[in-house]
């Protein structure tokens, strides 16, 4: 689960991480007032669940309350990176000498938490990881002992800190590490971690992603969820209990199993199409879930054809076929459909679809080829 900057900030501040003074605001007038309170020189930051908001106009410097008001007017109620801006964080401007990166992620291979730092802060760490992986320094923690002082100090020195900054960095890194565990985070980062012109460390942005599987025991964190920032189709999918991720292509697909769903997407790409989504209905989906999943796909205006790829196990192919037949009968299926059914009750499923407009394929490759061809035909209509 994603959180907003102001939420992550509040959590980290609770662990003693220093941030510049700031306040959340919902209207331009509020922004102007807050900017005045904060001394006039501020940053106005759109609170949206999207990376790269800076380049997209989601972070603006203002040197007077009036400028802050104007910056807010350009954001509030508008869409940045496909996300509606409902609130902005007004942050007192700080004069920085350098921008560092500090983050914690899971190290799957060592099965523990890794703390990372870089002297190249202020940009997306993914870009640093690609362009200059050696610019990211990592330490692996012992989950029992935690992030050792010496490890935090070595990160501090590696990013060019010295003297009292080393202890300040250590305190921030250990706070981040503790917050990571306490929040059941999968990612927690401070980027940039600024070094001010007077040498002090101050956190200027924070990002927290929480393990969805742990929300059941973190009601306080679960309450931070901002559904409005999520794709409505993904919200609906989560509600009915299927896994959906919107993609940019034209072939909607419904598959059981995450691995098979990805393999299906890859096959579509291989034969010249692009998947419109990832959709895994899971191993034991019910009729109503299948129905909901099909409707989610059909609601996507970019979908030109649908591919259904089911390996029947606990889930029965005839149940999937019946759900599709029902939708067809209701006239809800506006695009050509290709179905591949294997495993439990596959023959029964195919029998149900006989006589409908649905195309039957034997293999995944064949199904993908048919779907791509049909989508191209749709496009020409």
């Amino acid at each position, binding site marked *: 689960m994603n959180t907003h900057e102001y939420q992550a900030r509040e959590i980290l501040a609770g662990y003693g991480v220093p941030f510049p003074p700031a306040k959340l605001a919902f209207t331009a007038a509020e922004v102007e007032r807050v900017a005045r309170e904060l001394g006039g020189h501020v940053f106005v930051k759109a609170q949206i669940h999207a990376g790269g908001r800076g380049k997209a106009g989601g972070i603006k410097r203002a040197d007077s309350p009036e400028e802050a008001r104007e910056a807010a007017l350009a954001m509030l109620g508008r869409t940045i990176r496909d996300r509606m801006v409902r609130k902005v964080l007004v942050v007192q401007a700080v004069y920085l000498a350098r921008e560092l990166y500090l983050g914690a992620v899971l190290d799957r291979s060592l*099965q523990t938490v890794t703390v*990372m730092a870089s002297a190249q802060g202020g940009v997306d760490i993914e870009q640093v990881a690609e362009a200059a992986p050696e610019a990211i320094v990592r330490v692996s923690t012992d*989950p029992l002992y935690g992030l050792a002082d010496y490890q935090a100090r070595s990160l501090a020195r590696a990013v060019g800190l010295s003297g009292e900054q080393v202890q300040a960095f250590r305190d921030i890194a250990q706070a981040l590490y503790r917050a990571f565990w306490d929040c059941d985070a999968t990612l927690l980062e401070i980027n940039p971690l600024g070094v001010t012109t007077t040498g002090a460390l101050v956190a200027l942005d924070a990002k927290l992603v929480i393990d969805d*599987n742990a929300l059941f025991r973190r009601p306080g964190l679960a309450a931070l969820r901002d559904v409005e920032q999520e794709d409505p189709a993904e919200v609906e999918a989560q509600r009915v209990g299927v896994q959906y991720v919107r993609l940019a292509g034209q072939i909607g697909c419904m598959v059981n199993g*995450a691995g*098979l769903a990805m393999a299906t997407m890859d096959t579509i790409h291989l034969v010249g199409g692009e998947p419109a989504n990832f959709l895994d209905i899971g*191993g034991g989906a019910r009729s109503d879930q299948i129905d909901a999943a099909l409707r989610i796909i059909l609601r996507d205006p970019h979908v030109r054809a649908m591919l259904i790829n089911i390996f029947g196990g606990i889930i029965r192919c005839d149940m999937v076929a019946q759900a599709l037949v029902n939708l067809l009968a209701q006239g809800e299926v506006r695009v050509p459909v290709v179905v591949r059914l294997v495993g439990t009750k596959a023959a029964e499923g195919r029998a149900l679809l006989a006589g409908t407009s649905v195309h039957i394929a034997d293999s*995944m490759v064949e199904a993908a080829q048919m779907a791509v061809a049909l989508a191209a035909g749709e496009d020409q209509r």
Partner: protein
Amino acid sequence: MSILVDKHSRVLVQNITGREGSHQTRQMLAYGTNIVAGTGVGKGGRTVEGVPVFESVEEAVQATGANVSIVFVPAPFAPDAIVEAADSGVELIVCITEGIPVLDMVKVCAHVRAKGARLLGPNCPGVISPGLSKVGIMPADVFTPGPVGLVSRSGTLTYEVAAQLTALGVGQSSCVGIGGDPIVGMSFTDILGLFEADPATEVIAMIGEIGGTAEEEAAAFVGERVTKPVVAFVAGKTAPRGRRMGHAGAIVSVGQGTAEGKIAALREAGVLVGETLEKTTEAVAALVAGSRR
């Protein structure tokens, strides 16, 4: 022969009294799996499908000599069930449960390692040694005994590949789903080592996916330690970065986990990587036919 489970496996079903546990117990018994005991909190003394139910794993192990357990305990309590099994001397723990908080698994995996037990999963379909024993939830009819060792992070891809192999007339020694979570017990590397040592396995098929570095580590291991031919497939070439593809573990992040990187590492190590599942299983079949010649 086979790996992990066979006719001698004495299987304990943790939460056998639950809906999924009792259903799968029926399926496993029908396959011939030697299920000797079950556990159910507050349900000790009952029987499910003729299997005696115990209050604790310790009691079950003492009474029945169970040495393999399969966990159907709901996510909030599954970590505890794994720890209990490891503490009670169970040698192989298969955790089917999906949705366990990943930081719980950091603790559980460390504990299991310290106890010297083996953990498969969580969020995995289990393991089947066709014709011998099934300790998992896979549809049994697509598997058939033979010389291919199959290991996968994905459940349905395991079934799909096994079905295609079976259709091509090629059977399997053991098929292992290691689970789709970011942190799991046994890795590709562990399973590859077992297949390498298993006389019944002639060719190894490995089905990876995006996220993490397990495939890269497997590639390094194959290069150094595996003499048997390995064929691989990696799912998720078209997955966008930073988005979780169903499996909690299937996410590309901080420069790690792309399909391209994995495929390159595997090819570097001499592994044949199929472009599609069909080409992958055909390559496996050809290698089996070749080794039989």
